[in-house]
């Protein structure tokens, strides 16, 4: 197996974090190509089951690039997104997976640099955790 490159799924938001992530690209601020972004209208809409599914299907970590206080849709967006993260972490624990595979941070529409830093730090943290052990609790599925 070649060097372990953690596969990360990012949930971004159309009007806040996605433009920030775009800006990182526009400024040629590199982050690993194993980071994949799915954009939604608002981070309050992320479902815990999507997060668990991502890990089940082979992602090593899920990062929610949350709207934070910039959310123009849901006033208590941060609190709600945090609740989603907690729910997903509980589901992962039931499957003997590390809750640290889910992370959230607010990424604003100009937060290119902070996004790049988050990706570097999260990749590093996941590298330390190692590849996710997919599948229901107990069944330790290898990679590939």
């Amino acid at each position, binding site marked *: *197996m070649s060097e372990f*490159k953690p*596969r990360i*799924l990012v949930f971004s938001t*159309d*009007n*806040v974090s*996605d*433009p920030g*992530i*775009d*800006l*990182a*690209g*526009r*400024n*040629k*601020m*590199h*982050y*690993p*190509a*194993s980071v*994949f*972004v*799915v*954009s*939604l*209208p*608002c981070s*309050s*809409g*992320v*479902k*815990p*089951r*999507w997060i668990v*599914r*991502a890990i089940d*299907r*082979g*992602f090593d970590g899920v990062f929610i690039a949350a709207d934070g206080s*910039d959310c*123009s*849709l*849901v*006033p208590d967006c941060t609190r*709600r997104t945090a*609740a*989603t993260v907690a*729910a997903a972490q509980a589901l992962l624990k039931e499957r003997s997976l590390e809750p640290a595979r889910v992370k959230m941070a607010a990424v604003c*529409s*100009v937060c290119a640099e902070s996004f790049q830093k988050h990706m570097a730090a999260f990749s590093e943290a996941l590298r330390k955790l190692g590849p996710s052990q997919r599948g229901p609790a107990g069944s330790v599925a290898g*990679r*590939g």
Partner: protein
Amino acid sequence: MEEKKRKIGVYICHCGGNISDHVDVEEVRRRIEKEYGVTVAKTSMFTCSDASQNEMMKDIQEQGLDGMVVASCSPKLHLTTFRNLSTRAGLNPFQYVQVNIREQCSWAHSDDHQGATCKAANLVGAGIEKALRQEALQPIRVTSVKRVLVIGAGIAGLRAAIELADLGVEVFVVEREARTGGWVAELGEMFPAGKVGSELAASLLAEARKRPNVTLFLNAELAEKSGHIGEFELAIRVRPPGLAEETVRIQVGAMLVTTGFAEYEPKPGEYAFGQPGVVTLSQFEKLLQEGDGRLLHQGREVRTVAFIYCVGSRQCGEGEDLNRWCSRFCCSAACHQAVLAAKRFPGLRSYHFYRDMRTYGKFETIYEEAGKTGSVFLRFHEERPPRVERDGDSLRVVVQDLLTGGDEVALEADLVVLVTGMTARANDALTRVLKLPLGADRFYNEIHPKLRPVETVIDGVYIAGACQGPKNAGESVVSSLAAVAKAAALLIKGYVDLQPFVAYVRADVCTWCGKCQPACPYGAIEKVAYGDKEVARVIDVLCKGCGACLPPCPVDATQLKGYTDGQVEAMIDVLAREAEHER
């Protein structure tokens, strides 16, 4: 999954080379062309070109496509372009999916071609999955109020207010200062054409005041914003000097931001700034206006002026926050002021220390005239800028003049004018209220410099004038009229078509547990009878499509159009897939 086999067209863009320099687009096409439902798979040098668009329209019609995926730039740029194309070709525009393989792939991974290519293939695959599961949708219409807020009453804002008023739109203008006109109100004779700035500003104000549908708030700022395009709810804070602060609440359909620029303030000691006899361009402009027969500075007559160009502009070298831009107006403004000075104060000598003379377009004649009226030009290299030295009471400028083969020239001057450029005006509070994105240069950012030059990522908020980047007065007005056209086109229709990506409830699954109702920030969920049970229902026009009702539902009955469980999970599955070599 879907009853009838769907027919999806997939188009992958080279974007000149912006994408294909780092992503093997042919390889991406090969990897996805056999995917279920893919009827057409093509690459194109520029998918947004007329020729490519015509080809896509032809494919839609001839092949009977019922879904389309374009993998190119950020949806912020061309989502609307391709939705419009779909509509013209008879494809439901909401069955079009934009995949971003430029900002979020080729540019972000220009250091990893193989990784970028694999990622692009997965992203396109996910887009196809989404398109396969996307039903046809109709837009949701909301009324828009025919009122606009203009923020900043400089030449850009005032000109916009007048024009909007004449188009039948009610206009509110908030100006932070106690007077209107911005920088122009301070200026004397301006280039080109020589109109006096203060008179120009006064006549614009008079014109605005003539119109009953223009309301001007001075000493005022935008304090709060809620709502959305078509119906923004705003709070304006007015602080009349000596009077109690007042908050005015208004509702508008759109906003124009015309908050202008700040003059670059030289650092202490930069070209001896801070010492007597060293002034900025705007300070010199004032001296010109005040001078009566003789040009005076601090009581002393000025006989020789040295202009030093590109101060605070085109800064080079290492460093994050250097002002790398050219400020556009200053070469012309400085030459123009030298011409005025020569006419008003015969015998005055002007020496210009410049890097490149950028009196572009029609302003070239100003440079020519400066030469004819006695100005002398000396050119310096960016790495060897002139030095300003003080010698007792007089100033000396020393430079290696490129025009005379790099000889060192020293020149005595009574006054050194630093030709200061434009920088972004500090406007943190407004930026926060509107959530407007700033560029690395701290000016406000448009969505696209060529194609959508006055729109921002915040729907219904437009930017114009020098708050966007350096512009002279005429250019500021050009952009403000563009913003007028965009805002008016939106408001005069009386409605805005909102995206139909709203929530809905699968009534067969719903058992009314009541959890979604309080989760909705907009009161868009009601309880209705369905057969012999009670279920939740989404009121379309109230739903903003945030998806906040999704996580609380224990049976996955609440779904968001465009982001259903089926769509999101199919996308996750494809993105998780690793190519052979990655394992």
